[in-house]
C-alpha cells in the first residue's frame, strides 16, 4: 500500500518527463522496473552504450532502499566502473541501508548512477571482482559494502 502509492506517484512523474539519457523501459507492476541510462556527455568509456538498470522494490519501498543492479543482455553491457561488479551489482552508498533515505527516488537514483559513470575515468572493475562474482550468493541489499571512496 505504502509502496504502491508512492511508486504510482513516481511512475506518473516518470511518464511526464525524464532527464536526458534516462528512459523508462518497463514498469508493469510495482515490484520490478527496468530503466535504461546513457551517459550523455562524451566519456569515451561509455560512448554509444546503453545500460539497463533493474529496480526491485520491497513493500516498504520508500523507507527501504530499492535493489538496483545493472542487467546485461545482447544490447546492454555492464558498464566499466570501479564500483560496479561485472555481475551488475553496484556499490553506491545511496543504495545501501545507511545511505538511502526516502528523499531518493527512481529518477534520482538513475541520475546519480548516470553522473557516477560520467565522472569516471578508470575502465576497471572493483578489486576482487572475479572472486566476488564467483562466490557471492547474497542479495545486493544484504552485502556490507565499505564505502571508502567518496570521490567517484
Amino acid at each position, binding site marked *: 500500500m*505504502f509502496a504502491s*502509492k*508512492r511508486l504510482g*506517484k*513516481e511512475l506518473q512523474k516518470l511518464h511526464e518527463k525524464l532527464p536526458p539519457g534516462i528512459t523508462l523501459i518497463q514498469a508493469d507492476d510495482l515490484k520490478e522496473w527496468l530503466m535504461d541510462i546513457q551517459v550523455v556527455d562524451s566519456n569515451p568509456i561509455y560512448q554509444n552504450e546503453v545500460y539497463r538498470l533493474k529496480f526491485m522494490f520491497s513493500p*516498504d519501498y*520508500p*523507507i*527501504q532502499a530499492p535493489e538496483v543492479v545493472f542487467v546485461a543482455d545482447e544490447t546492454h553491457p555492464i558498464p566499466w566502473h570501479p564500483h560496479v561488479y561485472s555481475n551488475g551489482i553496484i556499490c553506491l552508498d545511496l543504495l545501501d*541501508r*545507511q545511505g538511502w*533515505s*526516502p*528523499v531518493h*527516488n527512481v529518477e534520482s537514483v538513475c541520475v546519480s548512477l548516470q553522473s557516477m559513470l560520467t565522472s569516471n575515468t578508470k575502465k576497471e572493475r572493483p578489486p576482487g571482482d572475479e572472486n566476488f562474482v564467483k562466490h557471492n550468493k547474497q542479495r545486493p541489499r544484504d552485502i*556490507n559494502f565499505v564505502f571508502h571512496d567518496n570521490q567517484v
Partner: protein
Amino acid sequence: MASLPPQRPAAFPRPSPSAADSSPAQEQPARTSSFSATSVDSETLLLDSPSSQTSHPAQAADKAPPTQQEEPQGELQEDAEPRKCWICFTDETEDDETTSEWRSPCPCVLVAHEKCLLDWIADMEAPTARRRAGGKPGKILCPQCKSEIRLERPQSIVVDTVRSAERWVDSALVPGCIFAIATATYTTFSLAGTHTIYEIFGTEDALQILRPLYQPPNAKGSTVALWLIDHLRRNWRLDLGLPLIPFTLIMSRTTLVDPFLPFLPLPFVAGSGQAHDQFLQFSWPPSAAFTIALLPYIRGIYNGYYKRVWAPREKRWLKQIQPRAGADDADDRDPQIPIEDENEVQEEEGHDDDDDDDNNVEEIDRIEVAFDLDIFANWNNGGVADNQAALENPPVPIARGPAHPLDAPPVDDDDDHEDDHDDHEPPPLVDAQGPEHNHDHDHEDGAAPAPNVPRQPARPRRRRVRPEDGIGWSSSSLSDTIFGALIFPSIAAAVGEALRHALPKSWVTLPAYGKQTGFLQARWGRSILGGCLFVGVKDAVLLYVRWKMAQNHRKRTVLDYEHSKGKQKKGAGRV
C-alpha cells in the same frame, strides 16, 4: 503550513497543521479563535515582540499581526504548490481522514506526514541499522538539510533504565571476559606458586613465608579501599611474587625473558627478611632468598656452558644418525673445507631428509639454523680440548642474557661448585671416546635410513628450549614446556627428599639448637640442590643416549641372509 517561519523551534509540535488540513477558509477562523490559548505563543513570540510573550497585555497586540501575516502566506503556498510528503510523495490534495498530520521537523522545505516520518525513523532506529552504523544510537537527520529531527517520546523510567542497563552490559562484556580470564589466571598462578613454595620449603617454612596470607584481615581499615591498600602495602610481595613463580618457571625454560630473569627475584629478596631474619643472612650457609636470587645466574652459566660445549656435539650426534649422515662426515676431518660448502652440504641433506621421515623435519630446521655451532663443533673435533675450545672459538651466538659475561671464561669452574657435580661426570665419559670414535667409524656409515631412530632425538630435544628452537614451536612442545616447568618444583623436592635419606644424617638435620650450619640442613636447600642435580643428570643421561645412539648407528651391520638362516634353501633370499 509549510512556509511558516523557519526559525520556529522544531521541538514544538505545531498546533496549526491539523486545522490546516481541510481548507484555508476554515483554517483561519479556527486559528484566530484559538489564539488566546497558550499553544500559539511560540508563533507570536517569533513574529513580533519576543519580550511580551509571557505577559497578559501582549495578547491584544498579538492577535492582529499573526492573522495578517499568515493569510497571505497560506494562500501563496496553496497557489504555488501543495505540500508534498517527501516520503510517500502524496500531496496535500490527496489527504483524507486517514491521513496523518503534516510535520515540518526541520528548517528546510521538506514536509511529511507524521506517520511516514515515524515509519522512517523506526527504520533508522531499528537495531540492525543502528548496529551497522557503528553502535551509535544516532540522531535522526533530515536527509536534505542534515539538521536533527527531534521527537518527543513518552518517557518511562523503567524502560530507560533497562535499556541503558542493556547497553552497559553489552559494552561491559569484553572487559568482563578479560577480567574474568585475568583473575582466573592470576588465581591459578598464585596457587601454583603457593604449591611450589610448599614443595621447596616444606610445610613449616612455607607457612612462615605465607603467614601474612593466613592472617585474619586487619579490622583497622574501616573501608574496603583502605583495607585493600593496607593489604597491598603489607603483602605485595606475596601478591605479586606467588603468581610470578610459575611464570618464571615457565619462562626459564625458554629464552624469551633471559635479559630480565636475573633481576626478577631482586625486589622480592631485597628487604624481604624483616620478618624472617634467617632468610637474609649473607653468610654460609646462604639464605634462601639469596640462593634463589642466584638461581637465574646459575642457570645462565649452565646454559651457556651447555651451549658451548655440549650442544654442538649433541647436534653432530643427531646428525649422524640421520640417513646418509656419512656424506659430509668426510668433510669433518678436513679443516680446509670452506664453510660455505659445509652449509650447502647440510642444507642439501636437510632437504633430502624431508621426504624420508616427518619426524626429521623439526630436527632439520634446527640443524640449519645452528650452522655456525655445527661448524665450530667440527673444528673442535680436531682434538682441541673442550674448555679451550670455549675460549678459542669465535663468539658463538649464545648466552643472550646478562649471564654472558659471567659464563665466558670460567665455564667449567663455575659449574663445578655452583651447579651440579653430576654435570661433570658425563663429560670425561664422552670425551674419552666420543671424538676419536667418531673419526674411526665415519666410513662405515652407509646410506641406509634408520627408520626408528629419528623418533628418539625429536623427543629429548624439547626438554630445553634453546634459542635456535624458537622456530619449531609446536603445541606439543609448548605444553611440554609448561607442564615440565610446573612439575619441576615437585621433582626438585622429591630429589631433595631422596638426598635427605641418602646423605649422612649430620648433613641434613638441623642442629638441636642454634642456626643451621649447612646448606642442606634446610629443606629448601635440599630441594634446590635436588633440582639442579636433576637437570644435570637428565642432561647427562640424554647426552649419553644421544652419543650412544650415534655410536650404535655406526656399528650397525646388515645381516646376511645366508649367515643367519644358512640352513634354509639358498638363493631364495631377498638379500
